[in-house]
């Protein structure tokens, strides 16, 4: 008797792309607002971005039900942290918590591809990029999701992130100004929407800096 195959999957892929770019004193996190399944669109207006702490925002693509559960879990953990420490979690602390939370479900993972962005304790921008089971790294910029294969090489070209193998050691942070970074993100998504069928509709951009958190939107192709 040939091996039985599953006739049902607990996962689905709702598509979409996320990007985050870290600056000297700001961080830009962006994601499209299209939620799809197969070749169909479920909604054109779904936010993949979640504010976890005062200076820490997460954007996730993948299976949105798992993303929602993950966001709720982290929010609850953050509340506990605030009760115990009387302060907000820093971005690096949240980064570690996210990694541990993902690995906790190593053998039934959250189908969630995350980028975490925010300001660290010194006010410098930081971006952390993850796989589905919690492997993470602090980087100057990153993208995840269906459009990441189109977006990442372009970001590499524009932001020239130095290799960590080079000496002298260079910062992971981009030398871009905030307005330039936001512009770059808009360009990148406009391009990704052209060729990736799962990316489009609207772009949601979140900018974190010393003044707080700002949100803006841009229309993308609806086809």
């Amino acid at each position: 008797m040939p091996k039985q195959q599953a006739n049902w999957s607990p996962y689905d892929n709702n598509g979409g792309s996320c990007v985050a770019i870290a600056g000297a004193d700001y961080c830009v996190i962006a994601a499209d607002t299209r939620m799809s399944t197969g070749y169909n669109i479920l909604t054109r207006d779904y936010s993949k971005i979640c504010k976890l702490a005062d200076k820490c925002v997460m954007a996730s693509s993948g299976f949105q039900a798992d993303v929602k559960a993950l966001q709720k879990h982290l929010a609850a953990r953050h509340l506990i942290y605030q009760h115990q420490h009387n302060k907000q979690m820093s971005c690096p602390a949240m980064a570690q918590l996210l990694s541990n939370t993902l690995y906790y479900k190593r053998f039934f993972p959250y189908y969630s591809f995350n980028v975490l962005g925010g300001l660290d304790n010194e006010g410098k921008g930081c971006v952390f990029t993850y796989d589905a089971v919690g492997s993470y790294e602090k980087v100057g910029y990153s993208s995840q999701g269906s459009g990441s294969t189109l977006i990442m090489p372009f970001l590499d070209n524009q932001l020239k992130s130095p290799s960590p193998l080079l000496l002298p050691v260079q910062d992971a942070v981009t030398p871009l100004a905030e307005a330039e970074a936001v512009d770059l993100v808009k360009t990148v998504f406009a391009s990704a929407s052209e060729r990736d069928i799962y990316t489009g509709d609207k772009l949601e951009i979140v900018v974190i800096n010393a003044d707080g958190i700002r949100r803006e939107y841009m229309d993308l192709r609806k086809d």
Partner: protein
Amino acid sequence: MFRNQYDTDVTTWSPAGRLFQVEYAMEAVKQGSAAIGLRSKTHIVLGCVNKANSELSSHQKKIFKVDDHIGVAIAGLTADGRVLSRYMRNECINYSFTYESPLPVGRLVVQLADKAQVCTQRSWKRPYGVGLLVAGLDESGAHLYYNCPSGNYFEYQAFAIGSRSQAAKTYLERKFENFTDASRDDLVKDALMAIRETLQGETLKSSVCTIAVVGVGEPFHILDQGTVQQMIDAFEIVGEQEGPDAAAGQEASAEPEQGAGAGEGVAPMDI
């Protein structure tokens, strides 16, 4: 009193039908430094006296934020209070997670009371030695509850627990009819006045007390010392004038208490 024969276990009844261990736990509450609470239709104010063990040490934390809409002030074994606060916080977080809405205060105090009751019916446990004034806001309005070590709980317009709380209760009994429609600031002033009553002579300063507020559009938070001191300074002058009036008012008042007192013959936990 000769009640030592039946007080070894919490699971032993006395011939008069009392559980002495539970009553002793209520005594522990009376030994703790004072905590008071009062509410209007839209706000609840909690206050407590900061008692430090010595001049060198800091005072113990007696007011805890449980959620944005609930806070608690404790009197008695503060360690027990801390543990119960952690339980309450957890319950709020879990309810929020499941129902995406804030835990109604009434539900929380019942859970707390049931938890306390368990410790009055297990031979290997002891009752919690802490009284909790739970202040919370939900769809049905502003609430103030008192949870006893016995597992009973009561709703109050205003209440005081801990040492010298009777002085504060007397003050609150005089003023409570005005609380429902009082403004937030008046409520805080009344809380400070009530705390002053428990100090009995000692000067009321912001370092000696802690005040917390929760209300409609105002998440639970502890007021900072500067704000508290300003409010004290604002009414201290008025307070001097009120002195002679207060003395006359006390003799005339005979308002029914909201369950704040207890007959001498009745077991204290049956309040």
